[in-house]
């Protein structure tokens, strides 16, 4: 343990919590306490400052040794016919270790946030897209179109870091950039330009977002619409948006899939993506699907390279099978198909869903339960307690994570490997 008296300050710390991998945080560590001194926000501050509570594993609420907890977890998995693993919520190594175990026990890999990720992944695998990254956005975007999402609620520093930056590589004055919110208004002023220009906001009722996307896509293709409004928005206004994108040398269209929370939202995402693809016949435009908080893109990336599929993969038949509907933890629990739940979450302290089946939680210290799981093994956080790697939302940049403190917490990867060895 480090001594509690001398605090240590770290600069340029990368955040695994925010999905945009801000790596300019200044962080003070004193004993097990962590404080964000600079460049924190409403996502990264609670992410880093979550206090360490438990350091000892428990079985049915009773403190036990790590070895006992590992043995009990292994026993549950040996008995289980279909264990479902979810959370993830993890860095590269934690995910690697989990997938080795899931493969061995014939379980299912799912993620707490898979539902939103799948809205994008289904589009990728059905029609593809033309995408861009945060660095291109920062240096190149002329018009930013936000579809059906409130960015700053989920990504508080998005505008500061990538839109209202001070300078760009290609001589553009970022302060002159245009922001259009289509379908939903922002909750705050992050999208207001440094010289006080407010974004253009075109609102519609949430249930009309699919219609709006379809109209946008049709207009981008050059169709003329008979209707005068789409989703309550005058078609002339939408024509103005498409025209603005067509006149732009480089536009970026973004959305937060987690906020497009309605059935078959993938079809709406697809319309938006196809509008962008069509724009590229004449000019340049690209999509940037936002997401990736708490390592969810990370776990999905690792799953993709190790199994060939991005998420919701079952090993029950001895080889990986991808099914974004059948391998949904909520469904497996509700239908009684899963007979053990393993929750692996080293970034987020959010608790697993309550389940009637035996639950093993390999989770961030500080996790609180409505229903105590059969086994709880508190683990440290990659980027605070251990080295590791995390992806940001564009899935291009993987950021190294560094150990900042040592308060004796083990890593999820080592717990998962120990369980695998005990089988």
């Amino acid at each position, binding site marked *: 343990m480090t001594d509690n008296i001398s605090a240590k300050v770290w600069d340029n710390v990368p955040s695994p919590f925010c999905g945009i991998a801000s790596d300019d945080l200044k962080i003070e560590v004193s004993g097990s306490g962590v404080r964000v001194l600079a460049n924190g926000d409403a996502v990264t501050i609670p992410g880093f400052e979550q206090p360490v509570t438990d350091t000892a594993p428990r079985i049915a609420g009773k403190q036990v040794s790590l070895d006992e907890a590992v043995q009990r977890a292994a026993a549950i998995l040996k008995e289980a016919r279909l264990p479902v693993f979810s959370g993830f919520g993890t860095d590269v190594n934690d995910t690697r270790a989990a997938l080795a175990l899931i493969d061995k026990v014939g379980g299912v890999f799912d993620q707490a946030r898979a539902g939103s990720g799948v809205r994008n992944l289904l589009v990728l695998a059905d029609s593809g897209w033309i995408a861009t990254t945060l660095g*291109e956005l920062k240096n190149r975007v002329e018009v930013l179109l936000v579809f059906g999402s409130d960015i700053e609620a989920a990504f508080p520093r998005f505008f500061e870091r990538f839109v209202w930056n001070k300078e760009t590589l290609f001589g553009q004055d970022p302060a002159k950039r245009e922001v259009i919110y289509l379908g939903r208004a922002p909750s705050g002023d992050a999208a207001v330009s440094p010289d006080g220009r407010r974004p253009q906001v075109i609102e519609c009722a949430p249930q009309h977002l699919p219609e709006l996307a379809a109209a946008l896509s049709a207009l981008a293709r050059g169709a003329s619409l008979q209707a005068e409004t789409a989703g309550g928005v005058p078609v002339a206004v939408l024509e103005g948006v498409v025209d603005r994108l067509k006149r732009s040398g480089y536009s970026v269209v973004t959305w937060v899939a987690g906020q497009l929370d309605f059935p078959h939202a993938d079809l709406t995402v697809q319309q938006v993506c196809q509008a962008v693809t069509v724009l590229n016949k004449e000019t340049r435009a690209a999509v940037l699907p936002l997401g990736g908080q708490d390592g969810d893109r990370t776990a999905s990336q690792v799953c993709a*390279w190790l199994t060939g599929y991005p998420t919701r993969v079952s090993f029950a038949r001895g080889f990986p099978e991808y099914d974004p509907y059948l391998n949904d933890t909520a469904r497996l629990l509700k239908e009684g198909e899963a007979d053990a739940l393993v929750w692996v979450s080293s970034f987020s302290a959010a608790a697993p869903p309550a389940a009637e089946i035996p639950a093993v939680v390999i989770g961030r210290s500080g996790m609180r339960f409505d229903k105590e799981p059969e086994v709880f093994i508190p683990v440290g956080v990659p980027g605070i307690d251990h080295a590791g790697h995390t992806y940001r939302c564009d899935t*291009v940049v993987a950021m190294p994570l560094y150990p900042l403190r040592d308060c004796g917490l083990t890593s999820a990867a080592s717990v998962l490997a120990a369980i695998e060895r005990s089988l």
Partner: protein
Amino acid sequence: MLIKLTGGTVYDPANGVNGQVRNLFIRDGRIVHSLSGATPDQEYDLRGKVVMAGAIDMHTHIGGGKVTIARNLLPEDHRADPEPRRGLMRAGCGHAAPSTLTTGYRYAEMGYTAGFEPAMLPTNARQAHMEMADVPLMDVGGYVMLGSDDFFLRLLSSGSDQQLINDYVAWTIRSTKAMGIKVVNPGGISAFKFNQRMLDLDEKHAYYGVTPRQILKSLARAVHELGVPHPLHVHGCNLGVPGNVETTLNTISGIEGLPMHLTHIQFHSYGVEGDRKFSSGAARIAEAINANKNITIDVGQILFGQTVTASGDSMLQHAHAGHAHPDKWVCMDIECDAGCGVVPFKYRDKNFVNALQWCIGLETFLLVEDPWRVFLTTDHPNGAPFTSYPHLIRLLMDKSFRNDMLSTINPEAAALSTLGSLDREYSLYEIAIMTRAGAARLLGLTDRGHLGAGAAADITVYTDQADKEKMFTRPAYVFKDGELVVRNGEVVKIVWGNLHTVRPEFDGGIEARLRDYFDRYHTMKLDNFIINDWEIEDDGRSKILVHPCHQGARS
């Protein structure tokens, strides 16, 4: 551990051994002259078997962002080729863009012990390394992509001193733990972001005002002056465009004698003759290669069937996306650094263009005289998945088989090709050059690709068969660093390979300049961009092997 391999017929071109019966000895993972009287712990009777060094694939897309995009793009391709967990092998999936574990198993099962990822973007190099770390049984390495990155183009367009460019190139190689430099559609990936749709060799980039020719010369010179063993690895302009044979010939002459490797040259060897305005440029390309000793190539052979093309060339992948099969594709602009395009494709033997592409690749193999300067690739997965290598080897070694295949393809294409009149058949010795000795020499791997004393004991033992496809599909034994990992085409032990790198020297001044640049324009800090040794080695699987550069020795 002492191992004796007794009585095999050895093909070891690096040491001039051509089909002689030899005993080989392994001590602690290395080949030695003899066991100095000691009794071997293990002896393998290799009488009647063919012995070569482990094969090296010097251009294969096995790790990095675009490979994982390809994986996510094609779940149906994976569903058709599941790899169940069996024995020591974990589950995965195969075909066009296999999972990393399956990639390693299947390469090893064919006798490959090393593969090099040719398109590692600087900002995505970390991912490429993490994926390659999950490829078992193989040594790996990567060529880092420059030439469409803003920092380099800015240096070039402002007329910077070559020394400064060399410093930047060296810094990039070291920071990304690379083995060499790749350039893809020089300047073109960047130009596409400025809405240029083509960039010919002497065409100016709309923003920087530099041409691909200038980019190639500057980078080739940097690589040469830094003493990086692997010459500049070039994916040229105008990939897949009819008439690009002229561009390729101009690229060869334009490099003015500097060492240059032209990759997947098949895709750059198209003429515009005939009614269809699409013809083979292979003869002219081969003639130029035969005449220019500074040039090496790999072919990028296409083979018929479904695959996926994954390339850094966002400009031309976008231009060709209309041919996607199935009809879906991804293009990406990446970090003012690079880009990528992933387009699934089905090569059809009855399609005129595809059939002629097949002929052009094979003509190239057969017309280039020096096997030390031509390498066996399909540009996996772009021309075909790497699992088709044994079939390709048979096409090269067996003229009657080749002509049988030729008689089944689009007849118009077959009639236009000279393939049927080419009698050459590759020998085992020449195959060993192309897939082992030559590849190791091209990369500067002094202790791989051969069977002399001191070499790492990466060894593949085949059972000689008339059907070379069968022979190269299932080796009798494969040793990785002296450990038996494959027996009769089945994996019997899992080991993890090494990461091959070079560390050219540079003046530290470049880093201060880059630090400021990262702070102002990038989205990550320079210190977080640089890949540390612990990231590769700390989990105890991969070891970093650093090969020497010979700075100043070759100018």
